[in-house]
């Protein structure tokens, strides 16, 4: 029935996890975007506001789990596209290497921003 499952060699596990992380992300992204863009507003965000928010363990946990789910879901989605369009084994391996190395760097940057303990600066 589902033409969505057209990916040639995406494992069944990746297919399921894409949907499971998708459900989680549905709520996470609406909450994250809603708070920052509609409630707080981008113009009201500053270093102090961000530091204060990340000092709260609930916010830290939320943002970190959002980071993990979003990066996994994004990487898995790009992997499916690579599998669909790149048929050469060597080029596919090269593309996947760039994808995973790149995503790991992004993950480390996000983790640094969210987890590293910052001192609130009042000025």
């Amino acid at each position, binding site marked *: 029935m589902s033409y969505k499952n057209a990916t040639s060699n995406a494992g069944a596990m990746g297919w399921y996890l894409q949907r499971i992380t998708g459900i989680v992300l549905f709520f996470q992204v609406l909450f994250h975007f809603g708070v920052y863009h509609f409630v707080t507003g*981008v113009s009201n965000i500053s270093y102090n506001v961000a530091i204060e928010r990340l000092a709260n363990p609930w916010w830290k946990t939320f943002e970190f789990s959002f980071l993990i789910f979003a990066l996994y879901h994004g990487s898995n989605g*790009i992997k499916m596209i690579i599998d669909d369009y790149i048929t050469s084994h060597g080029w596919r391996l090269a593309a996947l290497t760039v994808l995973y190395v790149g995503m790991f760097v992004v993950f480390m940057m996000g983790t640094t921003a969210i987890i590293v303990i910052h001192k609130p600066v009042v000025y």
Partner: protein
Amino acid sequence: MYKWRGGMLSWILHRISGIGLVIFIIVHIEGMFHIAKGPKAFNDVIAMYNTPLFKVLEIFLFAAIMFHAVNGLRVILLDFASGSRYPKPLIWSTYIVTGVVFLVGAYFLWT
């Protein structure tokens, strides 16, 4: 035939919005990483986000998120729930829900 074409458009838009969101998240995390470099570096990034160009990009981002989220939910209903019994209504509901939420949200983002 129509069903296939309708689903095909959603499928293409899902991929395009997905690629766009991956590019966005890379740029977004790089931007937020400036928090590790201190107040000046972080506030400079926020100042850039408040320029008119980024305001327009924010509305495009909102459109991509809404479509990808709502259409993704449709795919899940199709695969796991009894959505496969109502493929056509699910497709047009996706566009209607996305369109209405987008128009209302875009109004608040812009004003």
